[in-house]
């Protein structure tokens, strides 16, 4: 048996915080052989990233290895000092980070940064380093690499930045690459391209890879083995087919169930769901029911002449749920803001409930009677809640402003009803956003939007920043609210699976134009447009029943 390339044994990492020591890892163990690809999956807080940073010796000052050991190629590097680790970083093992644009120096050209990575370990002239950097950029398939050498990170797309990051990581031919959520935040098609590139490069060069991800599909597709982490421990480890086909540990089972797959339904995502067991059959709308929303030839051009939304038309019936799908730059978020009347359209018309609302300037829409009828739930509830408002104030704010309620028992009752309906425990109402978990914040964001009883709720990627198990619960909450309150949803998402589950119909957007429109199940099963087919194919997936 060969020596494992990376061996982590019973690792415990503790962070010193204001509230005392907090253990981020509680005895994690796994091993990675040379040339192998090991997936480390789990939800946020499970200790995946801490494991990677501990191996690289890049933990924060507050974090300390308190137990266990890390061996690289048989050598103990658990508490190695900077003198030992620095020559190894980049040369023996290197790392690729989440959020590639922030991971690159904003005021240094990407060519210089790749050259830095080379010259950190090799004695090269500036000219030779530049030539090699160019070769590396070509290897990570950056087009016009020669020109891109001088580009700064802000001039490149997220996918391009991640390619640059990969070029830096492989620059000195390390034997191990640790990829920490390398494609989170990238579009599915970009994600596929970046992951294919990364997998290809590691295979060609015989490098081992530790792929850290929250996306089970991604792990299943690219890893030889997958280790599941929960609360600082590895709870289960197996080849992906076996792991996802017959998960042994209870946590793995829950995680696998919560992952949206082509066959999952909202009810199947979480065993202890909030849904009524029997889906309430909605009575078909009587013929001649007026449309709730009609969008005609909507155009939005931003300064600079780029049309973010280019003649988009669609309609929605009361109580219907419509999904807007597309990659970044497809105009889906712009449409959601146009419909919510947060920004003014360049052209076209938005008719809500028989009245044109696109004539009212966005600046004045807050005073329009339709304001409380059209509400929005934003992406990333943590960023969109006022950090100085308690959960109570956040939910009460629209009631005060749009319903004119004064502080008193009426307001308190409404807020509490709202909190109950979104499943937010009442004691949490006094807390501020930073004291709430991601899922709780999402609930506050939803409660805030539904507190004034809107007819149309625009949901702009409400679950994009959430863990799958939390996403499952939030999706179930949304589905329940829709059934109970008869809300119409305009659901914006990049996740086709989620849209398929939640929406009756979907619209696929690309570059501000409608590519395809129709029944969501139908589109998912038999896409008409090539682009839609490409999008669906790019979703990393696993077949839980295939093994």
């Amino acid at each position, binding site marked *: 048996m060969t020596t494992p390339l990376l061996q982590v044994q019973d690792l415990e990492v503790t962070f010193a915080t204001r509230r005392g020591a907090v253990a981020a890892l509680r005895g994690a163990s796994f091993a990675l052989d040379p040339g192998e690809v090991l997936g480390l999956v789990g939800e946020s807080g499970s200790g995946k990233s801490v494991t990677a940073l501990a191996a690289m010796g890049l933990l924060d000052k507050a974090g300390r290895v308190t137990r266990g050991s890390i061996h690289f190629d048989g050598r103990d590097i658990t508490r190695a000092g900077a003198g030992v680790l620095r020559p190894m970083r*980049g040369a023996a093992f290197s790392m690729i980070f989440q959020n590639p644009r922030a991971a690159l*120096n*904003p*005021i240094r050209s990407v060519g210089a940064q790749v050259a830095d*990575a080379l010259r950190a370990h090799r004695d090269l002239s500036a000219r030779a380093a530049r030539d090699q950097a160019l070769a590396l950029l070509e290897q990570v398939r950056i087009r016009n690499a020669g020109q891109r050498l001088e580009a700064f990170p802000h001039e490149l797309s997220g996918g391009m930045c991640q390619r640059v990051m990969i070029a830096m990581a492989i620059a000195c031919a390390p034997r191990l690459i640790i990829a920490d959520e390398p494609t989170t935040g990238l579009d599915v098609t970009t994600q596929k391209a970046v992951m294919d590139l990364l997998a290809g490069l590691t295979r060609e060069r015989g490098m081992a890879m530790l792929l850290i991800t929250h996306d089970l599909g991604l792990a299943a597709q690219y890893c030889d083995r997958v280790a599941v982490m929960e609360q600082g421990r590895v709870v289960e480890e197996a080849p992906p087919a076996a792991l996802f086909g017959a998960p042994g540990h209870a946590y793995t089972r829950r995680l696998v169930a919560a992952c949206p797959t082509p066959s999952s339904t909202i009810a199947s995502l979480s065993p202890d769901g909030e849904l009524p067991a029997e889906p309430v059959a909605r009575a078909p709308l009587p013929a001649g029911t007026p449309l709730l929303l009609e969008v005609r030839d909507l155009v939005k051009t931003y300064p600079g002449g780029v049309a973010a939304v280019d003649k988009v038309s669609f309609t929605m019936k009361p109580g219907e749920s419509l999904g807007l799908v597309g990659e970044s730059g497809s105009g889906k978020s712009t449409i959601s803001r146009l419909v919510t009347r947060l920004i003014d359209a360049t052209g076209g018309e938005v008719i809500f409930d028989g009245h044109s609302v696109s004539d009212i300037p966005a600046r004045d829409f807050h005073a329009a009677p339709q304001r409380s009828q059209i509400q929005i739930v934003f992406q990333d509830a943590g960023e969109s809640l006022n950090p100085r408002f308690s959960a109570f104030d956040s939910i009460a704010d629209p009631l005060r402003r749009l319903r004119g309620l004064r502080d008193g028992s009426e307001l308190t009752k409404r807020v509490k009803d709202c909190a109950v309906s979104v499943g937010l425990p009442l004691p949490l109402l006094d807390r501020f956003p930073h004291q709430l978990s991601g899922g709780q914040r999402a609930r506050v964001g939803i409660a805030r939007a539904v507190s004034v009883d809107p007819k149309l709720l625009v949901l702009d990627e409400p679950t994009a920043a959430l863990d799958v198990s939390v996403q499952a619960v939030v999706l179930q909450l949304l589905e329940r609210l829709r059934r109970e309150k008869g809300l119409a949803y305009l659901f914006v998402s990049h996740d086709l699976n989620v849209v398929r589950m939640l929406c009756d119909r979907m619209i696929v957007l690309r570059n501000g134009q409608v590519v395809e429109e129709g029944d969501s199940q139908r589109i998912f099963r038999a896409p008409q447009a090539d682009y839609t087919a490409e999008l669906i194919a790019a979703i990393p997936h696993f077949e839980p029943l295939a093994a």
Partner: protein
Amino acid sequence: MRKLQAIGRRIGGRLLSSVPAILGVVILTFLLMRVLPGDPAVFFASGPSAGQQEIEDLRKQMGLDQPVPVQLVRYLQDIATGNLGRSMTTGQPVLTDMQQRLPASLELTFSALFLALACALPLGILAALRPGSAVDHVVRFLCTLGVCMPTFVSGLLLIYAFYYLLGWAPDPTGRIDIFASAPPEITGFLLFDFAVTGDLEGFRAAFSQLILPACTMALFVLAPLARMTRASMLAVLGSDFIRTARSIGLAPWRVILVYALRNALLPVLTIAGIVFSTMLGANVLVEKVFSWPGVASYALDALLASDYAPVQGFVLLMATIFVLVNLLVDILYGLADPRIAAE
């Protein structure tokens, strides 16, 4: 080429947009001077015994008999033709006085700013690298001390220690020893002029005169620069790309100097611009303590004497310098940060 054009266009735009501000400052100062009590004609008449007639004549000669709006228009016309008026105290045109005295102030301010930056950057970096450590606390103490102590106190303390007690510094009277010969007037910056003419003796003399007032000023502005460096270094050191730089095995000094410091310098640049402008105006106390023949003490003397023209000239000069310094900071910012140049 396109980049240069963009920069040129931005400079032009900025200069143009600063015209109203300067005009406003000029008019406001003009009116303020007229509102202040004190009659310059009385002040500059030959003596306490000057007759009413003499004062009236003087007033007419100075144009003070005209209504204020007329005076203002005449004043603006003068400025437009480059005539800042004549100082009643020195008897010379204000422009000439300024030309003689501005280099003294600028030399002092530049040296002080250079000194302050040379101390503040390393101190700020050290403090940021070990937050909460003894170094951090020492730096904080130094900064607090520098801000708390008025410049005339720290100036006097320095004179007491280095001139009176130790005898290292020459007597604090002006830019150069009265008995030493001044260099030929080239730029008016003594250090520069001595260096150009190769007069090392003179250079050393001017330098030793300069060092104490420059230290006094530097001490005063050390705090904002060091604190800003520390804060922005701390923010940058915590960012993702520093982690990246460490993950590729860069040497620690390269991470700190090339990756962290260059990014952290951007806000420091802004503060340095503000500090420079403040120093130019606020160094009147230092100039007084060290008998430094600068523009600020010149303006103060004129103000006390109700001598309108030099004060107005001084304010105009300060406003112009302020605009120019801010412009310079903007340009440097654009050069240092590609994200801003792109806008």
